[in-house]
């Protein structure tokens, strides 16, 4: 590879490369600081399975944010789908786990469709629509649970194996995340509908003039997000062996942080799958590392918020820099 192709590779993938570097640096730091507790097989396996669920959700959130929207209700959708799925399992232990997963995906999809209709047809601001629905879905979760928990004992062995089983030596969840990423990558880069999402995010008006049905695209991204949240929800309760009213409260902030770290602009129009995957990995790393170096759980919340704030502020500064360079190039 000659010099200029290498240079181009770097400038095209600046964010991803910096994320990889940060991940490496933090990993080394944590390994040293924690007295070698980081790079153990158990911890690394833990890291990947935790991150897998976060990563799966980030693909969906990415599509929503590209259209300049947001979805605050995914934590609640995860809880609702997980609760309904495991409640059904509780009474029917012989059911095939795959069926339970499908049911949860359907629940999530229905929730997403409602969100999509509110945003695309009724033109309600995404933040308000999903804030309201977050409470509705969460309330429904409590109602379904009737105040009690679904515990590990209520779940069948076959079901729990979904989260602990392996395929070719790699944990199921990680495999599922990789599959979701491949599908996401293909959809967003090689399928016309996927590209239309970017078009709508860049300029809804231009997209309409080009003949793209922007309402449908908006409805679609929230529906997909809902389906993914349903999927992730059932995996989540499976992994933790418990479903209750408070499941995944606040989880949406994790997902938004991963997307923003991964380079998705809150203003819409840009965002790459590779970046989001690394963003999720970095966030998962931070979540995993903080207990290891004795940062109390109470600090983790504030740090997560700070990550989001600093990420969007630095995205802004980078964008200003790019624009300044373009202005200087004008030779005026």
């Amino acid at each position: 590879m000659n010099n200029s192709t290498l240079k181009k590779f770097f400038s095209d993938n600046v964010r991803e490369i910096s994320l990889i570097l940060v991940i490496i640096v933090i990993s080394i730091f944590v390994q040293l600081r924690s007295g070698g507790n980081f790079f153990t097989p158990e911890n690394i396996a833990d890291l990947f399975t935790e991150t897998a669920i976060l990563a799966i959700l980030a693909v969906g959130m990415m599509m929503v944010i590209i259209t300049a929207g947001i979805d605050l209700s995914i934590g609640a959708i995860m809880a609702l789908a997980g609760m309904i799925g495991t409640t059904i399992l509780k009474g029917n232990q012989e059911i095939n786990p795959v069926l339970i997963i499908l049911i949860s995906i359907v629940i999530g999809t229905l929730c997403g469709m409602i969100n999509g209709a509110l945003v695309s047809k009724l033109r309600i601001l995404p933040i308000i629509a999903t804030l309201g629905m977050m409470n509705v879905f969460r309330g429904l979760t409590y109602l379904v649970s009737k105040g009690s928990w679904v515990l590990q004992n209520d779940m069948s062995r076959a079901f729990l194996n979904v989260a602990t089983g392996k395929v070719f030596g790699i944990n199921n969840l990680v495999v599922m995340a990789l599959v979701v990423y491949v599908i996401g990558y293909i959809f967003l880069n090689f399928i016309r509908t996927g590209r239309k999402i970017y078009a709508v995010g860049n300029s809804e008006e231009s997209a309409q003039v080009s003949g793209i049905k922007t309402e449908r695209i908006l409805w679609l991204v929230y529906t997909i997000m809902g389906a993914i949240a349903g999927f992730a929800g059932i995996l989540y309760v499976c992994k933790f062996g418990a479903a209750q009213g408070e499941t995944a409260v606040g989880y949406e902030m994790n997902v938004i942080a991963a997307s923003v770290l991964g380079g998705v602009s809150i203003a819409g129009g840009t965002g790459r799958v590779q970046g989001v995957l690394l963003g999720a990995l970095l966030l998962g790393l931070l979540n995993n590392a903080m207990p290891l170096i004795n940062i109390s759980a109470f600090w983790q919340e504030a740090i997560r918020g700070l990550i989001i704030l600093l990420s969007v502020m630095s995205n802004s500064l980078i964008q200003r820099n790019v624009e300044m360079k373009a202005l200087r190039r004008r030779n005026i």
Partner: protein
Amino acid sequence: MAKQVIQADGTRIIENERAFSWKRFMFQWEWMLVLMLIIVNIINISSSSNYANFDNIMNAMRDFLDKAIVVFPMALVIVLGEIDISVASIMALSSVTMGMAYQAGVPMGLAIVIGLLVGTLCGFINGIILVKFPELSSMIVTLATQIIFRGIASILLETGSVGGFPDWFNSFGWGKVGSIPIILIFTIIEALFFVYLLHFTKFGRRTYAMGNSVMVSKFSGIKTNKIKLIIFTMAGLLAAVAAVFLASKMGSVRPDVAKGYELDIIAMVVLGGVASSGGKGKILGCILSILVIGFLRYGLGLVNVTSQVIMIIVGTLLIVAVAITNLKSSFGQAKWVKNLSNNIKGVKAQR
């Protein structure tokens, strides 16, 4: 259709007074809210015999007026075309710092001032970030600060709580002047202040202008950054005030106080007729919507509806309120409405 009067020398006359119009008067959103308030009260009275006495109503008010305190500055935020999701977290952080200061031996009065200062500072931080980074939306900034502020409260107090405040402090939340709760008196004064601020001053007019178009406001000599900063700082300050009342009512402070308050507060603002896109709305509407949602919650509580079901109801109410205000503005522009009104006037619609 009336035609413009043109005088003999060619000058056109423009009217600067207009007659009172019943149509304009009756078609206001506030009447809808009055109707809702009547319905809520009818439901409450018929479902619980405990409801319709003066003391109970005053108790009910104590229940929701701490949220009401934040509704008025939030109305200004939304009229401005922005949003502030961090208010509940500001409430938590300011009451926690107040509690910790008291615990550390600071006299209660000073501790309260510290809490208020912290809240004001939080609001100021929101505002200054938005001013220095105009590319960022208030949505993402306050979403992030929502987590940071409550996170700091958690760091300070962990799972603990601070209580044991002096007796006079508890009277804020529970005390009365005559038979009227102190918190109600405060809220009424605050509401009057905001009516004055939004509807009678230059500041209020300029806020409406910014909510309609920041660009036009800039071209009209309006200091848009200053107004934005002031409004977000006010929201922080009044969130801290609400937190003081809440702490007084509960007798203690914890990092997870006021969890989920932002939903009710935003619902009260939007139901009050303040459009989420900005530039429209009245304080009177917010006063009415506070009563509607407040009494609804209280009434549901009286018949033991669980808080989770109430969550669903308020969430739905928020969405319905926004949907109605959206439909209201596109209602006037829909072709079929135009045709209908033109036909009614007996004029052939312009084809």
